[in-house]
């Protein structure tokens, strides 16, 4: 049986002080490593006959604007299917230099996940075969999942608080802007009541 | 010139004209109502009701479709070849309308004056081969239409369709030959008479019929051979770019082809207008009723086959291109050949 303790042991053996931040939130071993080491760690976890973390469950980014110098994190969830153990592995990077080695060589599954992470957070996965936006339009010029960017559609022309229940700061629906007049023809023809 | 015109037997032309008009009208009518039947049968097989809002039971549905298609905008893509784009569906329609020439629709009708009016547009010596020749030209409709659209899906479909249609012509012809052994004539009228006398050909040629039937499905581009218009793959295939009545032509042509191939199958294998198990000539009906009766009989048989066409369509999946070709070339052709040779040998042995 592979225990978290044992994994931790093995990692410590191999990478000594370089892997840090061991935690076990809700039972899942979590640790981090410097971003230069991410591939080494993943390779070790993959190749090691005992650890056999050969299934990349998921990969995602996180943005911590408060952590200066290490704003962005890539989180790998790995799974050892045979022993049924999951671990979480994080790599932090500076938002101004978000270069990280790609894991596509190890896991084919990482390809799109990394593209998505790039799309959302702007990581530069070094060595990725086809690093371009995947979900958003190619023309997009920012990384929408970073905390500073708003969720709402900024270019909306029909944004009308009266219609969409987005009241002013204080109350609800106090702020009424111009009526939606895209359907100019509709507006004209409002008089003739449509039979129904 | 005047003399020529007088020399022409205008009555004959009139008579044939009426007959042709009637048959083309019938083809149209049947085609229209086959679309209706298709929708209804599909619905019933699928526990649904089907169209029921246009007129009582949706009877007017085909008219609605037709009316709508007529008044739809006609689109001819710029990149396409204008003339060919129009020619494609027109060819498909024309060939579909022509195949009905040699089919005997009923027993001849004898007028009071004693002249006999055959209920067959043309009883030519080449009979069934004439149908084949028209069918073999029919492939241009799909090819030209698909190619002229300048759309990749259409092009692929056109090529698929053409390969399929020509491939299945072969086993169809081979299967037919075994029937010709029995009749010794290509004339449709004789083929029917032969069946009236000796029993339906299906009894002697079940395998041949099966091959013929499969090929008929393929020639009409019906499931499981509807690859050229497979909507899940090619998105309506060769008629993807067509709108308005040109689309209507393609759709109509398909249904008319179904109708005619049912008619051909009935004539070749199921005794045409012959009523099974009885000797109707002994009833002493007058010739009008006789013709009428035999006509209803053949229509009933055709209706049955049309139903089978629909039924198959709504039951089974379609082939893949290579499987379809394999079936045609590697299975049906040898099978039809063997069937032919065995039939010949058996007949000769029995004749000894």
């Amino acid at each position, binding site marked *: 049986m592979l225990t978290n303790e044992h994994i931790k042991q093995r990692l410590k053996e191999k990478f000594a002080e370089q892997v840090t931040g061991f935690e076990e939130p809700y039972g899942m071993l979590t640790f981090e490593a410097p971003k230069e080491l991410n591939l080494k760690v993943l390779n070790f976890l993959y190749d090691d006959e005992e650890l056999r973390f050969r299934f990349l469950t998921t990969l995602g980014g996180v943005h911590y604007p408060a952590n200066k110098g290490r704003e962005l994190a890539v989180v790998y969830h790995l799974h050892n299917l045979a022993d049924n153990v999951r671990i979480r592995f994080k790599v932090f990077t500076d938002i101004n230099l978000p270069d990280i080695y790609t894991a596509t060589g190890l896991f084919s599954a990482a390809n799109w996940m990394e593209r998505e992470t790039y799309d959302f957070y702007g990581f530069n996965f070094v060595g990725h075969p086809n690093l371009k936006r995947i979900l958003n339009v190619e023309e997009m010029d920012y990384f929408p999942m970073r905390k500073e960017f708003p969720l709402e559609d900024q270019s909306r022309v029909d944004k009308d608080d009266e219609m969409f229940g987005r009241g002013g700061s204080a109350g609800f629906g106090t702020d009424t802007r111009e009526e939606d007049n895209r359907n100019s023809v509709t507006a004209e023809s409002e008089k003739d009541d449509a039979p129904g | 010139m005047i003399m020529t015109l007088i020399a022409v037997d205008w009555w004959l032309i009139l008579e044939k004209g009426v007959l042709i008009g009637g048959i083309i009208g019938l083809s149209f009518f049947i085609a229209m109502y086959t679309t209706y039947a298709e929708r209804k049968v599909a619905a019933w097989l699928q526990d649904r009701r089907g169209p029921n809002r246009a007129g009582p039971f949706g009877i007017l549905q085909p008219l609605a479709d037709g009316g709508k298609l007529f008044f739809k905008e006609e689109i001819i893509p710029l990149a396409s070849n204008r003339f060919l784009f129009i020619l494609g569906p027109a060819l498909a329609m024309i060939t579909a309308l022509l195949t009905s020439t040699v089919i005997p629709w009923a027993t001849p009708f004898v007028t009071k004056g004693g002249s006999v009016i055959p209920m067959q547009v043309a009883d030519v010596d080449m009979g069934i081969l004439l149908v084949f020749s028209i069918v073999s030209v029919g492939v241009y409709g799909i090819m030209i239409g698909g190619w002229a659209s300048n759309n990749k899906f259409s092009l692929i479909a056109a090529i698929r369709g053409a390969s399929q249609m020509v491939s299945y012509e072969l086993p169809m012809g081979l299967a037919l030959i075994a029937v010709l052994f029995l009749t010794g004539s290509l004339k449709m009228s004789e083929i029917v008479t032969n069946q009236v006398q000796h029993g339906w050909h299906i009894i002697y040629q079940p395998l041949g019929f099966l091959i013929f039937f499969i090929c008929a499905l393929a020639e009409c581009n019906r499931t499981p051979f509807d690859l050229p218009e497979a909507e899940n793959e090619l998105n309506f295939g060769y008629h993807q770019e067509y709108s308005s009545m040109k689309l209507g032509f393609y759709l109509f042509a398909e249904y008319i082809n179904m109708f005619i191939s049912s008619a051909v199958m009935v004539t070749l294998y199921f005794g045409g207008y012959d009523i099974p198990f009885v000797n109707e000539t002994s009833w002493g009906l007058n010739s009008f009723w006789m013709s009428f009766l035999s006509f209803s009989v053949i229509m009933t048989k055709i209706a049955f086959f049309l139903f089978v066409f629909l039924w198959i369509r709504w039951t*089974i999946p379609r082939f893949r291109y290579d499987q379809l070709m394999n079936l045609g070339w590697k299975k049906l052709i040898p099978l039809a050949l063997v069937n032919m040779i065995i039939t010949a040998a058996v007949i000769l042995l029995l004749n000894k």
Partner: protein
Amino acid sequence: MLTQRAKQVDRKPMTFLESIYLWNILKGMGITISHLFKKKVTINYPEQTRSFSKVWRGLHVLNRDEAGRENCTACGLCAVACPAEAITMEAAERLPGEEHLYREEKYAAKYEINMLRCIFCGLCEEACPKDAIYLSQSIAPANYGRKGFIYKKEDLLIPHPKEEPEAYQKALGEKATIN
């Protein structure tokens, strides 16, 4: 094998009968034809309607109490709970003499739901602490323009139990009994 529970699916090679196509095609045709004679399940909407469950989340209603007073107190919880941000309201203080109109001291002077935004999730119903907003079993009808989907308070309020008792009875339907 990771577990003991794996079970191979049945992927046997084709038998001869299956390989000549016909048998299974005929079988399939048998199945489809048997449906020809089955009762059709189609519901002839709009002539017939299918019965909805009692808890079906359809068009909203704003509730009144037995005396016909509006229940809503414009607390705004429903708007907060609404993931689609479809609810807009304006609160107003109840003036003296309006007690027969509004149950609480505050009431919604304006209450609008944009049915085009609404996703009929029912969270507003759940959020309301005043027994005021409910989703009904009507479906929101289609319309030609976007404006037709702004449901104002008049469109949402249930019929007045006193003033329009008939309409009220109709709106009750067979009154929901199941929780």
